[in-house]
């Protein structure tokens, strides 16, 4: 069950004898690729074997083996299981791995992240700067020998809490300045931040001499980080030629809290409430993705009723996410508050259900390994039915009546290109944006998880990939989600809600697992490596928002600065997930 079927059928070892070897560690799948031939092998994997979508690039620090490993997960946009290949290099600085940015441009930001957090130099990457931490930061936080400020112990639970748990404040035990590490000779008084220089340096490659031989300066505009339309602390450094965007660099990390490191300190169960805080609009989906990953690793079944409850919650979550998307998009476009508040009214009703069933409106923490926390009472199921059969279909129609034919909105959205299918796949874009470009790639169909294979629904696509399509596809997806919900609430079986006994410490055999779901914003995946201990050895989140903004530059070049806000809105980013 843990081994994707096609890794056996794709015989890379035979194709590249001596270069590729099968990964035979227990619990692992995929292939080892020689470092020097990586680009060549990746090109063949893409062109000959058809794995055109590189979803995740991440690294694992095997401290005991003195190895640093870069893991690639490639999938086919036609569906089916994926291919895992990895490169292992000695853990001696400088650690160098060739960049895959020419084969898969979507690796751009993820390689920068691996450089930032692991210190792996991707040779050939044109703009290898830190992305989540700031330039001048000391160390690479996800290395196993790195310790954070206020470090207590390698893993939770901490021994100081029980049985001699006299409360003390971390900041009193370890006052400010004692808990920070600086580079040598660092003087905060004289420090000049160099990251902006490097950022503008990276934008200079878009400077072209004008045709008549005169040098014209490009204007650099910084949108954000404190900008109402950027959905949080997101900053984009944009170069402009007149009003046309000629270059754009996303600057992120203002909300970074090193979720991955926290996850490695936590036990498996303790990570569940932390996943709520990623994409805080869809905590149910985040829970689902994490639960699926760990269940894969533990190789345990899910109680059938719980599977249905999970689908119901995930689809309700998708509906409210898309409603808010529409409301906020109109907010960004200048239709202040009316559509947003109409959307929020329905969202409130859905959140009421979440609150009643899980105890919290947004930070649900509802799923457990093997099932869910508590059952749906008949009362709640009745409320869900009311919403699904009566209220939400009518309100979706009302939303459409309010907006879809509005001439001002249509003339604003129609014909403004977001992204075409080819570019979207190249840049690893997933979710509604990819489907609006005409690629019918929906993980609920392409790589079914949970009980989605039992429901009848359409993978909606649109053909033009313009802004209007990106708006309409969300409305279509709300309708499809309602269709799934109608079937799910009718078919939901009676029975236990967890296949396991409630336990606060789960046993996870050694190995790795990559679990992914179709979250409302795109592919949300978790990559978890276990070494048999109570805490995950490596815990990585592959957030949809973060990977999707790799394409933001391609989307924006050539369009007007006024479209930037709308284009960013189309990607539907959430900073909690993007910065982690």
């Amino acid at each position: 069950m843990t081994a994707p079927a096609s890794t056996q059928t794709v015989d890379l070892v035979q194709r590249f004898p001596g270069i590729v070897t099968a990964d035979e560690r227990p619990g692992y799948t995929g292939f080892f690729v020689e470092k020097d031939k990586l680009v060549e092998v990746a090109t063949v994997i893409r062109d000959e074997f058809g794995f055109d979508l590189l979803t995740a690039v991440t690294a694992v620090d095997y401290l005991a083996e003195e190895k640093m490993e870069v893991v690639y997960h490639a999938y086919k946009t036609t569906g089916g299981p994926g291919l895992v290949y990895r490169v292992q290099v000695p853990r001696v600085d400088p650690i160098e791995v060739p960049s895959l940015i020419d084969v898969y441009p979507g690796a751009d930001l993820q390689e920068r992240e691996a450089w930032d957090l692991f210190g792996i130099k991707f040779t050939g990457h044109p703009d290898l700067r830190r992305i989540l931490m700031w330039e001048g930061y000391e160390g690479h936080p996800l290395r196993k020998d790195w310790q954070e400020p206020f470090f207590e112990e390698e893993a939770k639970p901490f021994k100081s809490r029980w049985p001699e748990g006299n409360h003390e404040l971390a900041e009193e035990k370890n006052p400010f300045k004692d808990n920070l590490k600086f580079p040598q000779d660092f003087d905060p008084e004289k420090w000049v931040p160099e990251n902006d220089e490097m950022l503008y340096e990276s934008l200079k490659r878009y400077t072209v001499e004008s045709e008549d031989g005169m040098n014209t300066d490009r204007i650099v505009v910084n949108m954000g980080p404190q900008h109402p339309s950027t959905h949080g602390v997101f900053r984009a450094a944009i170069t402009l030629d007149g009003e046309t965007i000629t270059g754009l660099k996303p600057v992120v990390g203002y909300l970074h809290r090193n979720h991955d490191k926290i996850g490695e300190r936590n036990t498996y169960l303790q990570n569940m409430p932390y996943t709520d805080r990623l994409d805080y609009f869809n905590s149910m989906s985040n829970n689902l993705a994490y639960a699926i990953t760990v269940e894969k690793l533990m190789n345990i079944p899910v109680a059938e009723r719980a599977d249905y409850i999970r689908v119901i919650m995930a689809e309700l979550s998708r509906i409210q996410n898309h409603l808010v998307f529409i409301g906020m998009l109109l907010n960004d476009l200048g239709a202040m508050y009316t559509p947003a508040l109409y959307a929020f009214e329905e969202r409130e009703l859905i959140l009421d259900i979440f609150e009643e069933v899980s105890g919290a409106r947004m930070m649900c923490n509802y799923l457990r390994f093997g099932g869910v926390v508590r059952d749906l009472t008949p009362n709640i199921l009745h409320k869900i039915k009311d919403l699904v059969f009566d209220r939400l279909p009518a309100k979706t129609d009302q939303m459409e009546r309010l907006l879809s034919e509005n001439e001002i909105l249509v003339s604003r959205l129609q014909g403004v290109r977001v992204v075409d299918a080819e570019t979207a796949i190249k840049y690893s874009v997933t979710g509604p944006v990819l489907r609006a470009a005409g690629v019918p790639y929906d993980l609920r169909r392409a790589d079914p998880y949970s009980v989605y294979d039992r429901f009848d629904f359409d993978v909606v696509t649109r053909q033009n990939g313009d802004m209007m399509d990106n708006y309409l596809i969300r409305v279509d997806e709300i309708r499809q989600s309602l269709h799934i919900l109608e079937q799910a609430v009718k078919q939901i079986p009676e029975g236990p809600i967890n296949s396991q006994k409630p336990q606060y410490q789960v046993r996870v055999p050694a190995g790795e697992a990559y679990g992914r779901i179709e979250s409302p914003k795109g592919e949300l995946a978790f990559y978890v490596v276990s070494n048999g201990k109570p805490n995950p050895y490596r815990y990585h989140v592959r957030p949809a928002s973060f990977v999707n903004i790799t394409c933001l530059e391609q989307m924006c070049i050539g369009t007007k600065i006024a479209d930037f806000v709308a284009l960013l809105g189309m990607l539907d980013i959430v900073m909690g997930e993007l910065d982690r």
Partner: protein
Amino acid sequence: MYGKGILKGLSVTWKRFWDTYIEDISWLLSGKKRYFTDEGIKHRASKHTKGIFTVQYPEEQLIQPEEFRYVPFLVYDEGEEGKKEVRCTSCGICAKVCPPQCIWIVRSNDPNTGRPVPEPTEFYIDADICMNCGFCSEYCPFDAIKMDHDFDIASYERNVYGLEKLLKPASYYASIRPENYTREEEARKAKEEAKAAKAAARAAASS
């Protein structure tokens, strides 16, 4: 016709504008109060809500469902003469399962023997660090720690709760979570009866 879409959209907002007044008048005519009553708030948070649906916090507050969770408290049973029988045995499971590690427990030791006694000497919850996940109450084997409903805890100081602030009577727990309380009490009674029956059977067998 150009402008038809806009008119269609305006009809939606127009209808909604009047819905608020129609609702108000129909509630008035039926002699019920739509605002500042539980009934009215419940209606505005139901699928029948029409027109304005906002709740005027803090004068009005949404009705919290039973499962709503916010910062844990410790349950004690009221013994004779107001004696507090703390359910907690300081086993430490809540402190171990707590994701942000905000629970600190000092276990009691018998001064004569030095052995641990099932009662906490000190119990701290750093409410500013607590992420309200509810794991402590979920995995407590003694139903001793439960999630509260009181969410107005803003203060000028750090909210570090000690035993005197954390201990609340079982009757309070029953008042905020009646269904959970009855379910747990029934389970406990059934367990005690089974235990008594077993003991009786053993006594009968040995005599």
